[in-house]
């Protein structure tokens, strides 16, 4: 368990690297002691100096190991290649400047020249030499990072060659310092091999082209400076006049060659990068543009699938066109239903209204068929009014149509106050945008439309519920009379109405009405009729008077093509009579004495004519009713229900049902009729409102009228 976890830790790359460095350092230290003690080095140190020197070197090596731990971080810490490159190149310059500063200090104090005597000098040499070595090693780290930015299949080998080679150079140099000068050539060869290897290691530099224009300029300046500085360091390190090499050698044998190697690599790397960048500078603008185009189109495609709000969509499109095409004003005009500026960016809508009157630009688009592009509006006589009204807001202009089903439904405009702003690529891009936007806007517009129809539907549901409440919730329960009623509109709302009211003489009066036409307008009249009937009934002595007064109230206020048919029956339990009036309505069916009869007294539809004709035409009938008599009131949706094969339902079938029906429950008779209508209509959509009222007179009609009447009052009120 513990062993396993230790092994796991040891397998982590940074620990392995640290351990490797610590071991290598220990080995080098041992070698150094050995050769310093026994070799014939030009520098001779006292015992105390040797101890201090050794201690400092140990600290150095430990800090190197620590550094390795610190710098070996996961890749994710670094962002884009451009970010890594920025940090690496700026470090290269700063590090090189630091080393040059140290070299400068060395030459000022002339440390190397003194033949290394004295503890203070020894300390100073170590204090200046160790940072120099660390700075150089840090350069190597950043070089490695750059090479790893875009690894290829050989990069691991190349890396091994570089690091292994560097270790080998160190070893060779330690040998050389131990009075074996013959190996000097070997280290030179090694340096050359490593330099060639590093040239191969970093051939993949494609990411450089993804830098933006300004990044390229900066990158070129920094990497050029970096390579120049590294050349300076190389010269100073290896010229006889400088003591930098000596000082480094004294810190660690071979450190001078290692530093030389590192700066050869730095120089080669940054020289190459600066050349690549220099060559790509002329096309930097184009590359920038392409990148922006690609990003913009990617964003647009994303928005198409996610944005259902057309306003939001047009906003993002306008911003993209502005940024990518370099336009200052972008606007979208919709011309399919309502001609309007749907969105404007960078220009006031009022200015646009002045800019073109009544779709002038759209006619341009029609003439040019696809895309319109003007470099300088001032030079276009046909755009005279446009130019004059524009208040010089726009001089360059591009227009691309928004197409849906090969029809122009809108246009995408991009304008700029300067002339000759837009390139041909801009026009092509605007067209590409417009094509994509058409699809997206179509989606968004359809979505908004469906939202509207959804709202309409929910309003219709509310209307349906409201109208439901206009009809009686229940039928009156009267002794001696059983009543049942049913009403169903063909659509959400209908024009059928039924109600039970009390007349002035307290007779119960059943009213059934049917407004001509269907749907909303019928529903409004239906509501109006209910109000009128409820208001007038208590003042009317007979159903005839009620219907005449209703006609008087609505005549003249209805549409000419609309009218209402009504039937009203009032029951007098005392006299065992039914008073019946019919204003253009379907007849009353009554089953009595073993047969079913149709009663169709004369009467005009309500609202057709004024009171003069209406009142004189209306005929009131009185029927005697006896227990067991069945009465049926209905609207024409019942007898005119259609069926593809059997035609119309007709009155005969209703009469048959009345005759066949063998119990005295109004509800059961109603159920049979409603079922008949539904079955007869079959699959066909109900196309007219259906209302049925059934009344069956019970035992005791007439003889027990008074008692019934009292009971009826008690129940109804």
């Amino acid at each position, binding site marked *: 368990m513990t062993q396993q976890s230790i092994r796991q830790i040891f397998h982590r790359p940074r620990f392995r690297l640290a351990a490797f460095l610590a071991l290598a350092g220990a080995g080098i230290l041992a070698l150094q002691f050995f050769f310093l003690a026994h070799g014939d080095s030009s520098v001779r140190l006292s015992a105390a100096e040797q101890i201090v020197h050794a201690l400092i070197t140990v600290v150095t090596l430990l800090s190197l190991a620590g550094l390795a731990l610190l710098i070996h971080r996961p890749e994710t810490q670094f962002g884009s290649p451009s970010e890594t490159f920025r940090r690496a190149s700026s470090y290269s310059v700063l590090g090189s400047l630091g080393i040059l500063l140290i070299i400068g200090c060395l030459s000022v104090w002339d440390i190397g020249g003194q033949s290394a005597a004295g503890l203070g000098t020894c300390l100073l040499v170590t204090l200046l030499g160790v940072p120099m070595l660390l700075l150089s090693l840090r350069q190597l780290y950043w070089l490695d990072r750059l090479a790893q930015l875009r690894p290829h299949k050989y990069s691991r080998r190349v890396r091994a060659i570089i690091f292994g080679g560097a270790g080998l150079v160190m070893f060779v140099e330690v040998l050389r310092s131990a009075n074996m000068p013959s190996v000097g050539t070997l280290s030179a060869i090694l340096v050359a091999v490593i330099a060639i290897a590093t040239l191969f290691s970093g051939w993949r530099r494609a990411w450089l082209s993804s830098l933006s224009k300004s990044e390229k300029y900066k990158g070129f300046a920094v990497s050029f400076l970096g390579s120049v500085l590294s050349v300076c360091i190389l010269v100073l390190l290896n010229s006889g006049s400088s003591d930098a090499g000596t000082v480094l050698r004294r810190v660690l044998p071979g450190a001078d060659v290692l530093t030389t190697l590192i700066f050869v690599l730095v120089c080669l790397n940054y020289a190459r990068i600066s050349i690549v960048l220099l060559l790509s500078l002329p096309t930097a603008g184009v590359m920038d543009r392409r990148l922006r185009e690609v990003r913009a189109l990617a964003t647009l495609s994303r928005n198409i699938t996610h944005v259902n709000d057309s306003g939001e969509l047009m906003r993002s499109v306008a911003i993209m066109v502005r940024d990518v095409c370099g336009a200052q004003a972008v606007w979208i005009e919709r011309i399919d239903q309502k001609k309007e500026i749907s969105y404007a960016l960078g220009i006031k809508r009022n200015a646009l209204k002045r800019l073109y009157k009544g779709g002038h630009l759209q006619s341009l688009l029609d003439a040019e068929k696809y895309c319109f592009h003007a470099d300088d509006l001032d030079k276009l006589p046909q755009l005279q009014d446009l130019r004059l009204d524009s208040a010089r807001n726009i001089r360059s202009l591009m227009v691309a149509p928004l197409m849906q089903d090969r029809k122009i439904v809108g246009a995408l405009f991009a304008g700029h106050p300067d002339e000759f702003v837009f390139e041909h690529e801009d026009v092509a891009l605007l067209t590409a945008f417009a094509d994509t936007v058409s699809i997206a806007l179509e989606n968004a517009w359809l979505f908004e439309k469906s939202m509207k129809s959804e709202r309409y539907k929910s309003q219709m549901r509310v209307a349906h519920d409201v109208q439901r409440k206009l009809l009686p919730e229940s039928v009156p329960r009267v002794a001696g009379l059983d009543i049942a009623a049913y009403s169903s509109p063909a659509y959400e709302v209908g024009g059928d109405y039924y109600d039970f009211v009390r007349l002035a003489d307290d007779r119960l009066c059943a009213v059934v009405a*049917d407004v*001509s*036409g*269907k749907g909303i307008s019928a529903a409004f009249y239906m509501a109006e009729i209910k109000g009128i009937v409820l208001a007038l009934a208590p003042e009317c002595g007979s159903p005839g008077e009620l219907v005449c007064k209703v006609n008087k109230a609505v*005549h*003249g*206020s209805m549409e*000419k*093509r*609309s*009218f209402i*048919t009504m039937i009203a029956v009032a029951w007098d339990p005392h006299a065992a009579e039914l008073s019946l009036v019919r*204003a*253009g*309505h*379907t*007849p009353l069916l009554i089953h009595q004495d073993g047969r079913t009869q149709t009663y*169709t007294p*004369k*009467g*005009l*539809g309500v609202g*057709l*004519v*004024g009171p*003069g*004709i209406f009142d*004189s*035409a209306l005929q009131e009938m009185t029927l005697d009713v006896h227990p067991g008599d069945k009465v049926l009131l209905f609207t*024409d949706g019942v007898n*005119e229900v259609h069926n593809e094969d059997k035609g*119309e339902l007709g009155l005969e079938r209703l009469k048959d049902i009345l005759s066949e029906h063998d119990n005295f429950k109004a509800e059961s008779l109603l159920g049979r009729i409603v079922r008949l209508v539904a079955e007869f209509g079959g699959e066909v959509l109900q196309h*007219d409102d259906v209302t049925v009222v059934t009344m069956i007179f019970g035992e005791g009609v007439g003889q027990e009228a008074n008692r019934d009447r009292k009971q009826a009052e008690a129940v109804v009120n």
Partner: protein
Amino acid sequence: MSNFSISVRNHDLATVLHISGFLDAHTAPQLESRLESLIKDGVYKLVVNFDELDYISSAGLGVFMVFIEEVRSNEGDIKLVQMKPKVFTVFDLLGFPMLFDILDNEDEAFVRFSEKGGSQDSSSDAEQDVNDSSEIRRGPQ
């Protein structure tokens, strides 16, 4: 769905509209716009032949009410002829025979028109009332 058609034929004494098919809420606007354009052109003597009309709904009936007042105030009329019994029942239920001349055939209608305006033949009190245009539709206009 739209199995309704109108054909217009000019006669010396009146203009005859031959309607066929179904006259309901969907097809009524067709007839209404046809009548409207005829009346706009000053045609006030109209005969509507119902010979081939299979069905009429309340919305179809309403169309005739829209124009009757204007036509009669210009000494014309709309006469309805050759109705099938089923169609006549609908007119009858609503009391239209009191408002309109509903006749057996076109010739009868022409005879009525030739007799001066169509309001001379009043055989009942009710009909006389109807033809008194002041009684029909005192609309807001």
